[in-house]
């Protein structure tokens, strides 16, 4: 049992194995994303009932919430990958960390953008220093930090380790930041009404949301593997299997 687990775990140390498996996983993730995202968007935009308070502007939720959830869990994934990379020196973990950062940052930006656009009809202004929006903004800064550090260090292995330390420090900080921002928010503006906390959403409203969240996660996996494969080819370009792969690809 333990030895088979160990064998399974050690496979992850091989970039070649990861590259080949990720092609298979990507296919499934791509199918899920391709089904769920259009279905979720169409259902959310056209078929879900109007919100009795916010009217049709609430349809932004079907982008805003999945993007926000993904941006947060992506950072946690990066920290977990960083931990694995530091402890077990796995090349694949470094690759995943580096590849996830720009995707997470882009979804963090999307969450902020849709939050601001949603704020205009709901609060009457584009930006409110609401606790959730503010901590999303800080999360975006954390992503920028990781991306900047990765690109500032020339050597890929050193860059991976440094980014891993930064991500772990960041992930320890995220709960503190969230708590402090919420406290600060109640200190300054008591009782703003919240965007997404609502008395139990009806089924036909949250089902498309659930589908969207599943779709976005699948999309994230797909995009992550896409970037990871590029990164692996770049890092392993001197190995035989990458040379053969390049030859096969260029012949085709």
């Amino acid at each position, binding site marked *: 049992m333990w030895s088979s687990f160990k064998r399974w775990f050690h496979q992850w140390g091989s970039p070649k194995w990861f590259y080949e498996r990720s092609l298979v996983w990507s296919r499934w993730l791509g199918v899920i994303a391709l089904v769920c995202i259009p279905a979720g968007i169409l259902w959310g935009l056209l078929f879900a009932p109007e919100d009795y308070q916010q009217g049709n502007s609430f349809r932004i939720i079907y982008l805003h919430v999945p993007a926000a959830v993904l941006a947060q869990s992506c950072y946690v994934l990066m920290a977990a990958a960083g931990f694995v990379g530091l402890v077990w020196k796995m090349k694949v973990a470094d690759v995943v960390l580096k590849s996830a950062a720009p995707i997470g940052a882009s979804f963090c930006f999307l969450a902020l953008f849709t939050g601001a656009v949603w704020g205009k009809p709901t609060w009457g202004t584009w930006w409110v220093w609401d606790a959730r929006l503010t901590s999303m903004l800080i999360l975006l800064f954390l992503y920028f930090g990781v991306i900047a550090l990765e690109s500032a260090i020339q050597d890929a292995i050193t860059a991976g380790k440094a980014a891993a330390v930064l991500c*772990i420090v960041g992930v320890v900080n995220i709960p503190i930041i969230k708590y402090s*921002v919420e406290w600060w928010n109640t200190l300054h503006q008591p009782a703003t009404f919240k965007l997404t906390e609502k008395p139990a959403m009806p089924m036909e409203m949250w089902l498309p949301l659930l589908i969207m969240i599943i779709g976005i996660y699948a999309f994230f996996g797909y995009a992550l593997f896409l970037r990871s494969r590029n990164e692996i080819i770049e890092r392993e370009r001197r190995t035989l299997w990458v040379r053969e792969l390049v030859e096969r690809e260029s012949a085709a």
Partner: protein
Amino acid sequence: MSDRSQPLNLWQVFFAVVKRDLLLAFRRRQDLANPLIFFVIVISLFPLGVSPEPAFLATSAAGVVWVAALLATLLSLDAMFRADYEDGALEQMILTPQPLFLLVLGKILAHWLVTGLPLILLSPVLAIMLHLDESLLAILVLTLLVGTPVLSLIGAIGAALTVGLRVGGVLISLLILPLYIPVLIFGTGTVQAAAAGSEYAGFLAIQGAILMLALALAPFAAAAGLKISASN
């Protein structure tokens, strides 16, 4: 230290690092004064840029002092490990039998003594210039006393990760400023809560908890960062 064959105990090493760093800092007085001058200038820009009206300044004084202290600390971070990195002392430190995090903690303490502490001593004067209510001065100083060590501790992580890079200075701000936000929020928030007449001891306690957490974790992260930077 007469017997060279006897290895130093941990406290001796710790204080040797603090002493060495303080000595080095006092040899370069101008570098010592620069963050302080920056602190004063930033604070005097604020009334010029926004409004000199006493009532307005009084409400924003704590925030302005805190932001300026934060930026002044940031300015001094890049130098924390750079000289040691460039002359090779850092590699010696990594090779010592004593744990690296202890030496790093010594350097952080020295950094706080030469930047954080002078800022705290200067802050009441500037707060008075910003018309902060006199009853709040002590609380402001108290929040700075608990908060600025956290700035040095977290800052050390950023300094450690960027020490080998030419662009270090700018990058540190990008890495570290988001992590400073809780310190800033509780620092100014405590003063504002006290100004509003509410109970603030609990908020100070939270700041203390953040300090303890930073004290327990940051030296390890900074030591890991230094090892990574030195291996490059």
